[in-house]
């Protein structure tokens, strides 16, 4: 066998079976035809699928233990391997797109500069946007926080007697706990993005800003759909599942009283709302019902339409490694006989804008590239963060919502810096993670044991004689040295890896013995 074909075979063997679903022998007849539903269900019995690991345990405002949830994710190796490989694949596709564009780094600088310019004149551009949207016949509302946003949307729906709402994916509405709120006031919300719908049916938050169900195997989806929309629990063929979901969701879409979208870019000079999707579901949400509500975080503003081109070229390339999303929809005003509302939401953004070290996190365009490249995220799953925003961008945004609850998150990073390099708007993510650690220590949001250990380490390391005495003998080095690395979990180093082999002497004692005369 040639080494070429051997490599190809090895590559296929290394790939997780989930990623080879199309080539699944059990889902294909000998004639090469894909099995339909009935035939698919008669395939031979397999061992029961691995259970999906669930996310972080939430206890009110107590610090989320990301490490604990990550450990459970790693204990599900099929999930972890698929998740890591799937997202690494997106990162590689992103790299290929980047290499196809000589002006890539220039575009990133431009995108960053446009965002920084806009954020430093946000009040002006917001008012310009509002005025232009109103000229287009759109009703514009302002919401200080999540509660105001939810109340405003509820009031609009109530005015129209709406009982059901279809919506496209929006991280802002996740931030606002919108689905839960709507459930509490008796309005049915139907997600139209496939991944988001899976998550809704499973009563679970999205685990990624772009691919919300990326942590699920198709067997997990089969289980969710079997329970909620009545599919065959033993059939996890992706085509079958996608079709079944479509058939169950389409009638709900057609019958909905109102539609809601998020917004990727709000253009100040035109007052228009731009939404990028791959499923066309924002268009369904905005166009099928007569009432369209767009929820927009105030940082989504860009000054002019020409700026949009810069972001559209970067967004999908960074997110999924595709040149552009399937749909880039511009909504400028209500359809004939319809009504369009825009809710501009602050929810902590103004406060963040005033934070000297962290305001540039508002440049984020929610592409998820930092998640795809993050080696920690890929191995712990988005739900391990227990927050609306997971991965590197989450580490620097979440603490602005609740410093105590998310006090562990900035420590869930090796500070490797890959996130900052893939960021299409050049947010210095890893430097902000580092800055958040300092900030949390200042706010006293770190465990006492860690604090005591760091203080002791600082004292020992600043006194050469005491330090030398502590590590004179090599055995003692092994006993003492880890102490300023390991502050509370004394056995953590050796749990899954070997401890370093102690040498016969330290460098210091070698130097004394061999170069002792020299000073």
């Amino acid at each position, binding site marked *: 066998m040639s080494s070429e074909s051997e490599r190809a075979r090895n590559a296929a063997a290394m790939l997780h079976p989930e990623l080879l679903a199309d080539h699944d022998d059990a889902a294909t007849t000998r004639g090469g035809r894909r099995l339909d539903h009935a035939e698919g269900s008669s395939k031979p019995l397999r061992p029961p699928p691995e259970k999906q690991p669930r996310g972080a345990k939430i206890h009110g405002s107590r610090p989320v233990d*990301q*490490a604990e949830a*990550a*450990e459970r994710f*790693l204990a599900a190796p099929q999930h*972890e391997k698929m998740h890591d490989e799937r997202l690494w694949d997106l990162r590689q596709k992103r*790299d290929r797109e980047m290499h196809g*564009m*000589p002006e*890539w*780094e220039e575009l990133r600088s431009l995108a960053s500069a446009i965002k920084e310019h806009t954020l430093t004149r946000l009040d002006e551009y917001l008012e310009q946007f509002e005025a232009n949207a109103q000229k287009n016949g759109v009703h514009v509302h302002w919401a200080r926080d999540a509660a105001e946003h939810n109340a405003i949307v509820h009031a609009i729906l109530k005015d129209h007697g709406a009982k059901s709402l279809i919506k496209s994916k929006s991280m802002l509405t996740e931030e606002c706990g919108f689905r839960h709120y709507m459930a509490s006031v008796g309005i049915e919300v139907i997600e139209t993005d496939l991944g988001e719908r899976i998550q809704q049916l499973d009563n679970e938050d999205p685990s990624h800003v772009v691919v919300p169900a990326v942590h699920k195997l198709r067997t997990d989806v089969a289980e969710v759909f079997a329970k909620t929309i009545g599919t065959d629990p033993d059939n996890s063929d992706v085509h079958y599942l996608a079709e079944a979901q479509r058939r169950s969701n389409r009638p709900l879409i057609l019958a909905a009283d109102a539609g809601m979208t998020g917004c990727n870019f709000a253009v100040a000079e035109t007052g228009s709302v731009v939404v990028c999707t791959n499923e066309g579901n924002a268009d369904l949400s905005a166009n099928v019902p007569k009432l369209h509500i767009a929820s927009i975080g105030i940082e989504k503003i860009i000054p002019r339409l020409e700026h949009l081109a810069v972001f559209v070229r970067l967004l999908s390339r960074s997110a999924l490694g595709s040149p552009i999303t399937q749909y880039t929809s511009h909504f400028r005003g209500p359809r004939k006989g319809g009504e369009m509302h825009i809710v501009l939401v602050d929810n902590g953004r103004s406060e963040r804008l005033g934070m000297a070290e962290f305001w540039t996190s508002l440049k984020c365009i929610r592409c998820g590239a930092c998640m795809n490249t993050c*080696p920690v995220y890929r*191995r*712990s799953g988005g739900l391990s963060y227990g927050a609306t925003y997971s991965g590197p961008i989450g580490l620097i945004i979440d603490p602005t919502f609740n410093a105590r609850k998310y006090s562990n998150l900035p*420590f869930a*990073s*090796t*500070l*490797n*810096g*890959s996130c900052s*390099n*893939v960021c299409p708007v050049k947010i210095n993510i890893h430097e902000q993670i*580092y800055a*958040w*650690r*300092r900030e949390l*220590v200042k706010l006293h949001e*770190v465990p006492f044991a*860690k*604090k005591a250990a*760091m*203080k002791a380490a*600082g004292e020992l*390391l*600043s006194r*050469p004689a005491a330090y030398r005495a502590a*590590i004179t003998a090599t055995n003692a080095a092994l006993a003492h*040295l880890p102490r*300023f*690395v*390991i502050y509370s*979990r004394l056995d*953590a*180093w*050796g*749990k*899954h*890896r*070997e401890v*370093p*082999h*102690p*040498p016969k*002497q330290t*460098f*210091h004692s*070698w*130097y004394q013995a061999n*170069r002792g005369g020299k000073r």
Partner: protein
Amino acid sequence: MRIGLFIPCFIDAFFPEVGIATLELLERFGHEVVYPRDQTCCGQPMANSGFNADCAATEALFVRNFSGFDYVVGPSGSCVHHVRDNFDAIEQTDEVREVRARTYELVEFLHDIEKAEAFPWARFPHRIGLHNSCGTLRRLKHATPSELHEPFFSKPMDLLSKVAGIEFVTPARPDECCGFGGTFSVFEEAVSTKMGYDKVTDHARAGAEYIVSADSSCLMHQQGCAERIGVPIKFIHIAQILNGAAA
């Protein structure tokens, strides 16, 4: 030149051979190399955990030890990164700024300052996988990281390619972090070790006999991971190869 030899704490304690190789290598190039005996640490462990105030005294000690040299050279990317880029717990006097600016990691010193042309004493007839630690790759900019669309360069590869016998192998994810991350290695030990397993497996699959790095901390972590899961691969610091280690 008069060089202050900066031997980070864990190299002193666990990898004396890396310190010795660094010392001898700098001497081979004819420098006067001085090892200040009162040195301990640069303060990075506390600083990376957010406890900046707790490293003030350690940083002050570092400056006392290393003031007045033409250069300060250490064989550890992350420690040098701390000194150069984050060392701000103490007042930034002229003396402090001077020490910070003159502190170099060994590879960049040999490449940028020494402009080393040859290592005639060195021979390393082995297949090696180069591990660019994140500190050297993305902070000290030893090489082009794969995320950026910039012309390729690699200072450690430039140096190693001047050593007879070396064959480079390329892992599938050449600059993925190995998971050490300082206190991350114990704070998130499960993720940290999984990253380490994946790293050493990737190098082994590419056919590397040795993983070579300018950071002993990454190597210490990777070695612990390789030994635990039985990946037969060896580890060596770049200073040892450049100084003529026979393997």
